[in-house]
């Protein structure tokens, strides 16, 4: 995982639920390349079309509330979202994103201080966000060691793969 992230912001409001991130009528899709085309369709059908890989989502409170559908972070990740910053995250969404290796951090009030088109540079280990144009910086909440270790591994899947390969290896030896 990159710990230094730079990108342009997409600003979203409070309580963006997973039905807005990924509408229920597409839940039968299983291919991430198909899934990503419906990303944020409940907010605006245009977002996915105009998205540039590397963009950073900056949202208000309770981002990802509602259904536990993993399609929501799968869609965001495969669309190329590099980081999600929010005032707060709903718990299941937070875990799902972390498991997929999609970084997310909490920075209260940031969405109100930005305008569309702003670019940020973010240092995840130092927990600092900088507005590229003005140089203004903001402290964010530290991700936490446990979450950071999952992100650094690229998500939970590589960690589990390693754990099970090791087990098999031990059994053989």
């Amino acid at each position: 995982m990159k710990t230094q992230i730079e990108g342009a912001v997409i600003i979203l409001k409070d309580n963006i639920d997973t039905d807005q991130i990924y509408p229920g009528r597409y839940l039968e899709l299983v291919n991430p390349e198909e899934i990503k085309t419906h990303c944020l369709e409940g907010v605006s059908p245009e977002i996915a079309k105009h998205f540039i890989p590397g963009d950073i989502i900056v949202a208000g409170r309770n981002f990802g509330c509602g259904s536990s559908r993993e399609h929501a972070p799968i869609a965001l990740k495969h669309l190329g979202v590099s980081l999600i910053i929010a005032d707060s995250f709903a718990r299941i969404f937070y875990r799902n994103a972390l498991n997929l290796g999609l970084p997310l951090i909490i920075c209260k009030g940031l969405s109100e201080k930005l305008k569309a088109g702003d670019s940020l540079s973010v240092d995840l280990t130092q927990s600092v966000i900088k507005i590229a144009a003005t140089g203004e910086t903001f402290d964010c909440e530290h991700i936490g060691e446990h979450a950071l270790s999952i992100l650094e591994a690229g998500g939970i899947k590589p960690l589990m793969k390693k754990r099970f390969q090791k087990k098999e290896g031990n059994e053989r030896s």
Partner: protein
Amino acid sequence: MHAIEKILAKASGRTFVKAGEIISAKVDFAEINDLYLQTIKSFDEMGGEMVWDRNRLTFVFDHYAPAPTIKSAAIHQEMRDFAKVNHLTHHFDINEGVCHQVMPEHGVICPGTIVVATDSHTTTHGAFGAFGTGIGATDMATVMMTGELWFRVPEIIEIRIEGTPPKNVLPKDVVLSILGKLKADGAVYKAIEFSGSYIKQLDVPGRMVICNMAVEMGAKTAYMQPNDAVLKYVGERAQFPFEVHYSDEDFAFSETHHFDITHLSPQIAMPHSVDNVVAIEAVPQIKVNQGFIGTCTGGRVEDIAIAAKILKGHKLDRYVRLVVIPASKEVLQTCMKLGYIQDLIDAGATISTPGCGPCLGAHEGILAPGEVCITASNRNFPGRMGSVAAEIYLASPATVAASVKNGYISDPRQV
């Protein structure tokens, strides 16, 4: 320690845990619904071969029951194959109902246990004194492989509810009134214990409604100390040995909120947020196109009974629809025996197969642009039940029945 902490301590092989700690806990029961083929995909990707315990994992086909499309049929097919290969003891196909109703009915939810499911409304099982929490597909895949999952021990909020509500004011109204105060993020990453004189005497279905909606405040889990009704229900059905935990007298909650429901009015969550809650007196005359009674929130015998009582002998306007979907086969059979289904069909209702129905916009009652639906289900997000230009009002099943009876949102105390 709180009972929730004792459950987590026991499951992680510790004598003590406290809020903020990260622990790895053994899961007692895990459930996958039919939206989550990704569980099997992640399981395969991570090198999974057979599931950790064939007695403690099940599929419940509820969101697409019966399959409305070729793609969802293919999901069911792949899940059935996985269940067969792994010789899963339990399997609930399209003929059973909503997972959160079906699992307790079949005795796999017991007090003091850890239950995970790929569904946010897993908080429902706090009604039985279990630690129930929703997880995503990849988390579930790690459970399928190891039988364990990491958890952050949550802070615990106490919500004390006192009093007895007026006639036709239901547990759904109680929880909507709480949601209106605490808001949709009032309990993010925290647990909620519901307590007080109202909860002590509340029956099993009522407890399930309140714990079910705890997730709409962001709660990780909900808890109610099991009462006699719960112990009787579980005692008749339990598939596993279990232990009821009790909180220590000196446990300190992170917050306590008090609610007196003695004079509570029926509550409505207005579009498009679950916490946009007002008392029915403040709702103007709003015409409804569709009413919906069903789901893990509002599809139990008691919910259908009150609707049948309100609508018996009445004919709905030909342009007003009422979709009724019993939460399970057991609920449907009971309602048939008691004559409720007959009464509702006579009144003009549409009855559908037990399952989630239109709650998440998959099938069986999708809304067109500009339509208004009043529903006993749990979410009114934009587009949740179909068009983003439809309006969803959350209410109790009594309010839904009264509203379709009159053709506009109506007070069930006056019908």
